[in-house]
């Protein structure tokens, strides 16, 4: 073990003093000086902390930080026990129950704290999740797999491809449903990506996360996971959905189509809201999955999955704002971008000052599509001059797709086709419920939150 690993987070003076005293994180240490004495377990230092303090866990369980100075002495009085993470044994499988798979990719749902040192570990395994929620054993036979252990902000198109391929393998092996545990930050992007990549699904694919880490008693991970397992094992639909809290209460889990769902709050449990759509299903009060619409793809074990897992990395999302510099559009084209998703204003506009740049990149064969930064609603580029001008420049309106889904779709479209005209055609086709011809008044979530 390197010294840095042994003294997690310590730098500079503090690291030097600890090294000199031969102390490692987890050791029992005594710190004396300035008329005070502290004895306890040496705790890792958070990355943001300064390098003049050491942190000790006292016998009472409290941590305190102690400032180092010339007259402060550190000594090691005992060897600590290294933390170990023993997963509880998996509950016995009941063979009469449907087989499903939980794949873990990382994120809050898969993070926990080492109670002794306070270090956060982001690699709780899928089987840990299963161990945390033993009730799952009464719902399904669960097979678990760790695919990645990464925060969702580090997910890329390559990960989407890998996830889609793995889901397809599990389905080919007879899984009655597949669950992907995912960090919530970019979970909606992944759900959209899988919606495009996994076509003609025979069974449900559920993307699930948590807003409170699973080491907390109040975590939403368990309830979200139970809802996800119910849907994977028994849900009558065969689509890619996101399963999360519908309100701030633990009573209801809603299932939203992967192309129509967005993270809308930084911290609330009910952060995932349907945009230009409504939940397709729900579980309330621990009951079974209830469908909320008749317009959904039915579970059909005989269906043959069509896997289209490729995504282009040459696509950019460009947000328009007052004073936007049009040369930014040219900048992207110079970097060999094949598709630009413009996040325009209102019904679908950008400043007339951008027209030249747009015309230029379109003529180079770049696909330029436009979705609205209003998030809710449909673009309509026939109402104002600006919209009509943009249409005549070759900009593709994204209808009621909100920007993130439109971006993912553009990446996917360009991942399938080298021919620009073919790609444009595919982009305009409704592949996974991303377009809806009718928008109902209740599809706009402008209301006071609450249970």
């Amino acid at each position: 073990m390197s010294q840095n690993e042994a003294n997690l987070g310590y730098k500079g003076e503090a690291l030097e003093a600890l090294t000199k005293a031969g102390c490692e994180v987890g050791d029992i240490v005594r710190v004396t000086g300035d008329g005070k004495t502290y004895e306890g377990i040496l705790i890792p230092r958070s990355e943001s902390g300064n390098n003049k303090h050491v942190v000790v866990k006292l016998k009472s369980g409290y941590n305190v930080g102690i400032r180092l100075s010339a007259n402060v002495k550190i000594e090691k009085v005992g060897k600590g026990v290294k933390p170990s993470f023993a997963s509880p044994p998996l509950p016995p499988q009941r063979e009469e129950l449907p087989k499903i798979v939980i794949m873990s990719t990382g994120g809050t749902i898969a993070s926990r704290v080492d109670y002794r040192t306070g270090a956060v570990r982001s690699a709780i395994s899928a089987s840990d999740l299963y161990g945390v929620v033993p009730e799952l054993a009464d719902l399904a036979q669960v097979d678990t797999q760790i695919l990645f252990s990464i925060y969702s902000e580090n997910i890329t198109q390559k990960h989407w491809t890998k996830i889609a391929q793995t889901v397809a393998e599990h389905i080919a092996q007879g899984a009655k449903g597949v669950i992907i545990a995912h960090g919530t930050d970019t979970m909606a992007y992944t759900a959209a990506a899988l919606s495009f990549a996994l076509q003609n699904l025979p069974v449900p694919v559920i993307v699930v996360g948590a807003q409170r880490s699973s080491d907390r008693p109040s975590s939403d991970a368990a309830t979200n996971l139970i809802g996800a397992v119910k849907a994977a094992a028994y849900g009558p639909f065969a689509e890619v959905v996101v399963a999360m809290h519908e309100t701030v209460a633990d009573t209801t889990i809603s299932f939203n189509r992967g192309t129509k769902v967005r993270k809308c709050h930084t911290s609330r449990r009910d952060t995932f809201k349907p945009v230009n759509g409504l939940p397709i299903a729900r579980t309330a009060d621990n009951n079974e999955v209830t469908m909320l619409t008749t317009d959904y793809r039915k579970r059909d074990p005989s269906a043959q999955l069509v896997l289209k897992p490729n995504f282009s990395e040459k696509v950019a999302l460009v947000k328009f704002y007052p004073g936007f510099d049009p040369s930014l559009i040219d900048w992207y084209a110079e970097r060999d971008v094949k598709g630009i998703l413009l996040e325009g204003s209102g019904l679908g506009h950008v400043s007339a000052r951008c027209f030249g740049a747009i015309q230029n990149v379109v003529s180079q064969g770049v696909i330029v599509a436009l979705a609205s930064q209003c998030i809710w609603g449909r673009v309509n580029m026939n109402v104002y001059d600006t919209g009509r001008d943009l249409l005549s420049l070759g900009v593709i309106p994204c209808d009621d797709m909100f920007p993130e889904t439109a971006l993912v779709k553009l990446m996917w479209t360009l991942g399938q086709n080298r021919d620009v005209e073919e790609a444009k055609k595919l982009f305009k086709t409704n592949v996974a419920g991303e377009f809806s011809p009718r928008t109902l008044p209740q599809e706009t979530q402008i209301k006071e939150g609450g249970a």
Partner: protein
Amino acid sequence: MAVDYAKVGLKVGLEIHQQLATASKLFCSCPPMLFKDEPQMVFLRRLRPTQSELGQIDPSAYFEFQKGVKVLYEANRETACLVEMDEEPPHPLNKEAVETVLTASLMMNMQPVDEVHVMRKTVIDGSNTTGFQRTCIVALDGWIKVGEKVIPMQAASLEEDAARKIGTEADGKIIRYRIDRLGIPLIEVATAPVIYSPMEAQEVALAIGRILRDTGKVMRGLGTIRQDLNVSLPNGALVEIKGVQALDLISTVVEYEVQRQLNLITAKDELTSKGVKAQDIKEDIVDATDVFKDTKCKVIKKAIDKKNVVKALKLTGFAGFLKRELAPNFRIGTELSDRAKFWGRVGGIFHTDEMPNYGVTTEEVKALRKAVSAGAEDAVVFVADTAENTVDALKAVVERAREILTGVPAETRTAKEDGTTRYMRPRPGAARMYPETDIPPTLITSEFVEHVRENLPESAEKKLQRLAKEYGLNEKLATQIVDSEYNTLFENIVKESDVSATTVAVFLTESLKALKRDGIAVENVADEQIREMFRRIGSGELAKEAVSDVFAWLSKNEGKVVRDAVDALGLKMLSKEEITVLVDRVMAENKQSIEKLGKNAFGMLMGLVMKEARGKAKPNDVSELVKQKLS
């Protein structure tokens, strides 16, 4: 029963929790206040023991989880935001609260830590929406002097107060909590277990309370201070008693706890000498619903009508023991009943030591004894409720009865207003604490410590001398004011109004005590209204004799002001003309007596006039007028 506390080896440690009067809560910007109306929103949650807790989890909490107990939280907009709802991470630690705890710590000669680290203490009974209480140590290892004795102080911590339990519903499956109190800053100070008598415990608590009040930054009134006592006897057990709210109850609570433990030890010895063993108490729970099918007992009849059941259990050798008193109005039967209520969510239990009673007949008792094959030496406990609850309740009774044969169980108890204590939960294992990673550590620099040290508030002793000197209070009044929650208010009033310091002091101590005795909720009246009363007295708009009436009215009419009280009570001061008319009338009515007594009629006349004008005229004005009219 006179107990030699030194001989029985009593040891008491104190933990005092006091709410701080900061501008906002500990981890968000909500005001630290409660609400009384109906909640504006409710939401249902479930707390789950986390993986690493399994095995070391608070057993009662795990039990509740397994039973599917849920928590319904109540909130309103004024007193809680997303932070209390556990829908938003905590904001940084409230600096004002840290400074207050630091002030109190220095006054108790403690050593501040260099860096404050907020911890999460696992609590999954629902009282914290997160499932943990946030708490941090600010200072360690100090002392205070109480009389001649030095009391070591172990630590001063800053923590968030918990949500308030409102009640339970759905056969105990849903617990209601109100999250207004959640997040109010609390200082916690703990003494070493070096207190050896009930009275000493009370004196130490008083001394600590005084220091906390001297910071000028603590809340006042019922529920703002909570005293926990750790009481232990070498032959008994360490029992943690939570939530003693009144200071003068502390000695009684300790006395009763010692009695309870000693009586439990006696009961154990007697049962043992009768040959009763723990393994004789069997978990043989019998359905006795049939015995009560025609019962006159209302509670049981109601349960049977609801299709619930009656279950019964024999306690071998316990006949006569269940009615045995452990503390005033508190019997071994009560101990069993408390456990049954907690683990079985039932309203209570019946037992044969109290039968026939409550409409249960001698015949029913006979049939019941037969049903569980109980002999004359045995007691029978029975419960009417749902099948699940009755079984849980009787299992808990078995466990508690077995414990009687091994001694005093170490447990957490809660203090009642009469000084007795009730079972609250098993004693938690080693506190499960882990860092609150959402809050960066707070640095306590030596410059900051020096700044606080230089601005420490006056000590109680110095204050006592100053009050006597500056305001001419006698020693008794000065002491009462220093000991009261009102010492800051006292000085504010005296400084801003023309009322004598003694009058103000008497009101804030003796009059308020009398009002409290009469059942007036003194904490309902805001400081500002008390100040307004005295401003009016000073300016002659209100008679000082009316002050108790005005105060009582205000306490019953929260949100109203002094002017409203004066109007409602008809206490507007009489004008000089009105007093003259009144005096003239009284003199006319008593013409004969005046003629007979001459100037000696003064006392009689004063009495008669003041009877009508009390609170509406200054006695001085009246006496002057009467004197003038008589001459």
